[in-house]
């Protein structure tokens, strides 16, 4: 897979706005309809990652994955369903399996179902630094820290804990740009 995740992914939904482009910056789209997704993908100013479980109207089959890759030009996508993540990868998309970091037992169970060739989106991302190092090292790469990361210290802790990319809210972006090296 020759697609790399941007260092920072700014989360936006239908009502959000595009952030100022910058190196190492991308957009994570969620909470949209399929129609809105196609509009947002028409001329995005930054690389797009899509949380496909949060797109109303989008199917979970190979046709949908191929539509994302071929018609919308989506390069990376997230799903909490292993089968769906595998189909995204089959369509040529950098796929991440969203794993709930609720307790170590749950992560172990999720890892057992993780398809080959699929990375990891750990949620809530703010929990990543609190996982045991041995468990973190077993999370398939690339690794996105996704959810409830709101401060510079939390972003830095996620990168220090092995995250390849961190998802943040657009309202936190300016402070992150000043402190975080967003170069890929």
């Amino acid at each position, binding site marked *: 897979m020759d697609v790399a995740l941007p260092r920072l992914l700014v989360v936006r939904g239908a009502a959000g706005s595009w952030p100022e482009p910058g190196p190492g910056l991308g957009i994570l789209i969620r909470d949209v309809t399929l129609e809105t997704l196609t509009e947002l993908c028409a001329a995005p100013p930054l690389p797009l990652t899509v949380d496909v479980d949060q797109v109303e109207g989008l199917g979970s089959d190979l046709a949908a994955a191929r539509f994302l890759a071929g018609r919308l030009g989506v390069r990376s996508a997230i799903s909490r369903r292993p089968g769906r993540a595998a189909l995204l990868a089959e369509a040529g998309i950098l796929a991440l399996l969203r794993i709930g970091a609720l*307790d170590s037992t749950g992560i172990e169970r999720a890892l057992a179902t993780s398809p080959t060739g699929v990375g990891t989106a750990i949620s809530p991302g703010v929990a990543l630094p*609190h996982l045991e190092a041995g468990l973190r090292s077993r999370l398939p790469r690339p690794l996105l820290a996704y959810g409830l990361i709101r401060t510079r210290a939390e972003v830095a802790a996620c990168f220090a804990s092995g995250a390849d990319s961190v998802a943040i809210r657009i309202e936190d972006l300016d402070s992150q740009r000043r402190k975080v090296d967003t170069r890929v």
Partner: protein
Amino acid sequence: MPGVTRAGGSSLAGFLDRLRAFPFGAAVKGEAEVGRALAARAQVLFILRANGLELAPVLQQVHAAGKLAAVHLDLVDGLSADQGGLRWLVRCGADAAISARGDVVRSARAHGVVAIQRLLVQDEASIDHGLAAIARAEPDIVELLPGVILPHIRDLVVPRLGRPLLAGGFIRTPEDATAVLEAGALAVTTSAEALWT
């Protein structure tokens, strides 16, 4: 059904008193862990993994040791997370039932056992949905997972909760536990035995 016991003082007030006295619940996943927890300082065992159909003797042991038991209906083997599964737990002598399901939580209260609802946090939307579900189900206690992040999200949860809060998940060190308790948790639930022995 083997003979049923229920510990004295397993009312909500009694349950909370035990956790206030020693704010570390022993999260146990097997017979050996139950044995160690019975000999430890923990006053309340949180049974996450067990054969739910054979729980009564285990709960008798817990009560004989003067401790209380909360059983996770969504996780134990052999039971479904519904009204029937809950009635079985009650008959086995569980002092508290844990579930993420609002209907189960409501029934637990109706059956006179302490009702603990899990708040599973992955993002801000899950907090909003979870708090709305809690408001509908009105559990006695809420358990937040992963508990270790409570200090990071205290402002999003604690002021909106209005009921006792437990925190479980990835709490392994005394420092983790102290931060979580200072953030507003009544107690932590943890499988890290060093914290409850």
